[in-house]
């Protein structure tokens, strides 16, 4: 039973991680790629780490896995915000319909 739940969580997390990879490969613009990857990757890591935690059972390892999840949830969003802010301030124009018409 535990293995079924853990495997389902791992597969669900893998779907989100692969969605993030498709996003970073296929989307047209830096800001769109950043938008796709940061959220998908954070949720994918949370689900897959939850799968690992369910597999190991309630020990100190579970606490450490949850600590990894909490830290990555804070840090990934910070990095995405810093990257988007740096790109906008350094003059990288977003891919909007107005920008495409003026080209």
């Amino acid at each position, binding site marked *: 039973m535990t*293995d079924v739940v*853990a*495997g389902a969580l*791992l*597969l669900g*997390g*893998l779907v989100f*991680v*692969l969605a*993030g*990879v498709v996003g*970073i*490969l296929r989307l047209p613009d*830096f800001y769109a*790629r*950043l938008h796709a*990857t940061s959220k998908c*990757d*954070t949720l*994918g*890591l949370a689900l*897959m*780490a939850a799968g*690992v935690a369910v*597999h*190991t059972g309630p020990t*100190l*390892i579970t606490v*450490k*896995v949850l*600590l*990894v999840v909490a*830290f*990555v949830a804070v*840090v*990934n969003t*910070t*990095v*995405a915000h*810093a*990257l988007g*802010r*740096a*790109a906008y*301030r*350094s*003059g*990288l124009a977003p891919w909007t319909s107005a920008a495409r018409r003026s080209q």
Partner: protein
Amino acid sequence: MSGVVVPIAWVLALAMGLSMYRVLAGPTIFDRLTGLSLIATKSIILLLLLGVLSEREDAFVDIALSYALISVVGVLTLAKYFERTEAPR
């Protein structure tokens, strides 16, 4: 359990290779940094899965935690640095 974990770990490694395409080919430096942070997150997941596979979760969770603490610093510093330059390639 390891019957599921081994293919998942291989798919994750393949996804890391695909993210490497954006690091190598990305039009701007910020695309490359995004790809790098994506690879860092995937390697944290891969470390947790390696702990499950080798049945040494206690050691690998510590490695994943310290890698999660360290991997941020580089990308954040480079983002702050390139903020002041003009849209480098």
